[in-house]
């Protein structure tokens, strides 16, 4: 082996260790960055499902202030656990709209009565068409939409209590 090459293993090791140290210091973020960041909300107009509560149209999401759009379903267990967090966000002044995915009016009413109703408007997406247009693959998911109808953030899975500051910060940024 040539004399010049003898430090090569050490240099490669140092690189490897540096990379692994970096990885340990910045744990893997498994949240996939949404392709819809910065894209306008697709046009939709969803019918109301609950008496006395209006449905949701894309035009409702471009009225000057940021809103949180939550995709949920009465048949979804994580959605039930997320409901408490949504209530807390509402108490902090967050405007929340709901899209009920593949659900029945009576089931939604029972779900809201049991776990609370943080939504200003609820649209029914009985065949997941708007869900697919939004690039969502499951429930619950939440989108932050700014005052001009542009998607600023997509949260896959339930919002947990730890993530409230993150969501509030993202809403602030969307102003």
């Amino acid at each position, binding site marked *: 082996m040539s004399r010049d090459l003898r430090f090569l293993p050490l240099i490669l090791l140092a690189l490897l260790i540096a*990379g692994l140290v970096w990885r340990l210091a910045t744990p893997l973020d498994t949240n996939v960055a949404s392709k819809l960041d910065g894209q306008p909300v697709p046009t939709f107009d969803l019918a109301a499902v609950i008496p006395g509560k209006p449905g949701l149209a894309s035009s409702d999401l471009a009225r000057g202030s940021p809103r949180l759009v939550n995709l949920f379903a009465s048949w979804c267990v994580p959605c039930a656990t997320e409901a408490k967090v949504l209530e807390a966000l509402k108490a902090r002044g967050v405007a929340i709209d709901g899209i009920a995915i593949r659900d029945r009016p009576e089931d939604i009413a029972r779900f809201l009565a049991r776990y609370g109703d943080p939504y200003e408007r609820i649209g029914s997406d009985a065949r997941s068409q708007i869900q697919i247009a939004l690039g969502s693959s499951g429930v619950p998911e939440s989108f932050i939409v700014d005052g001009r109808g542009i998607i600023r953030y997509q949260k896959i899975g339930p919002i947990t209590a730890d993530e409230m500051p993150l969501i509030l910060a993202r809403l602030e940024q969307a102003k």
Partner: protein
Amino acid sequence: MIAEAGLASLWLAAGLAALQLILATLSFRGAIDSGRQMRGVAIVQGVLGLISFVMLLLVFARTDLSVALVAANSHSAKPFIYKVAAAWGNHEGSMLLWVTVLAVAGAILALYSRRTSERTLVAALGAQAALALGFYTFLLTASNPFTRLFPAPLEGQGFNPLLQDPGLAFHPPTLYFGYVGLSVAFSLAVGALFTGEVDSRLARAMRPWVLGAWVLLTLGITAGSYWAYYELGWGGWWFWDPVENASLMPWLAATALLHSINVLAARGALKAWTMMLAVIAFSMSMVGTFLVRSGVLTSVHAFAIDPQRGAFLLVLLALYVGAAFTLFAVRAPALREGAPFELVSRETGLVVNNLILSVILGTVFVGTLYPLFIEAVSGEKLSVGAPYFNAVAGPLALVLAMLVGVGPLLSWRREGRPVLRRLVVPALVGATMLAITILVAPAIGLLSRAALAVGMYLIAASVVPLVSRNPFRAPLATWGMVVAHMGMGVALVGAAANAAFTQERLAVAQLGETLKVGPWLVQLQSVRPTAGKNWTALEAELLASRGQGRLTLRPQTRYFTSPQAETNEAAIETFWNGQLYTVLGKQDPSGGWQLRLWWKPFVTLIWLGGAMIALGGAVAMAGRIRRRRRAARNEWLRR
């Protein structure tokens, strides 16, 4: 009491490792002459390590729930064998097993090593003690397996159901024995670099360790591959998952080492390179352990994800590998290379083997860690998958397989005979296979076709070294080599046949419906609930037939209660020419059942090849031991 006894032996063993390191340092400096005492210390340390592990096995066998580790990983309702296997099916227990094997390996080195000089052995035992000391510290401070829980819970939390399988109960220990066996090669290399006595005696002392570790690694990888194949229910046998790669990398390095060490033993050449490989082989084992234990890479194997433990292991890794590489950089230039050799010689053949294996190793290494580095530098997330590994490692493996036929025919130093003439028949076998695949299956991929031809060629070429002589007078080591090389050909043919000819059928079947996959007709007869000791299951009854004869397969979806989990138990039927692989999925709203069916021609050859490679290694080892015994007896008779 048992747990406390285990912990006490662990502390004592750690103390002895420290003593062993101090003695090594002192006697290496010439202050004292303590070779004999060090051997004693190393042996007692090994015994104490073993006692500690046996105590852990005992608390698991008795399901002593006052031990935190048992409560977290076992359950009173589990079958006995999995109660015991749970001892190493978790982070702390597996690290204890790791250290135990390390200590026992040190003890065996101290007991049986007569080949190296005393000075090199002392330095090697010192290196082994330094390795052990780091891992004892890790166990005692960050991963104590014997921590008590008070009050003791009434029931344990259970054991990952995927791991409740006889194959997997023994897969990690086999790999660990292999990993840690390489630690002795590492320590001997470090010792020899200290003393400068890198010679054929060292190579002969190192060879049984490398051979033994390599046999176990081969077995462990083969068993792991088969486990993933039948237990995960995906029908694949190798996924290029980071943790699989972590076990493959030490194997590749050990394979290269196994070949280069012969050059050092026979000709005194390739000194620096062989030492480097010995260091790298064990370093790759530590990298592998780190990757599995820290969870830094996204993997299906992410069992223990804990950044602090990861940091500790990383420090150990940096320390040991860094020290060995530094030592190498300082000492390697002073090593005088041994006898020269010509371009066409067995030495050159083994160098080429080493180069190709190293390039494959580099490929796997880069592919495994590339996503991490890209994300560190640019923040972009990506993953490297099977297409990259297959495209790069596949052709390299084929070139290697071509040359594996040639290498054993070359003689040391210089080859004057027309060697290629002896490969005419194997070449014809390969060409015939190529012609058959072109005629019978014109549509299969280029790589699969080439692998089928090269695999058949290699199967034929591997026996050529036995042909020109009386095969029954050939040394066992030659037989071992032939079997292992043939195993490589067999595995290649199996992998290629599986890739080229597998038929898959994924469908929703109503009761009574018949599906066709390959030559098979499979009818869904019924789906019924059934139960085992700690699970309930839905079991389908499938009636399969091709031509005449019928057979029944019963794939299950199992539901485990503690912890709650669901696994697919594939039903697999093996024939001489392939496997019928069936998996039961979920029920559809229409009342039908999802079924996944595969017909996989000659897939079993993959693992048969792996087993042959390991068997070849074992035969070679038996041959070396027999030869050594004979030499010892002859020497005794001469006296």
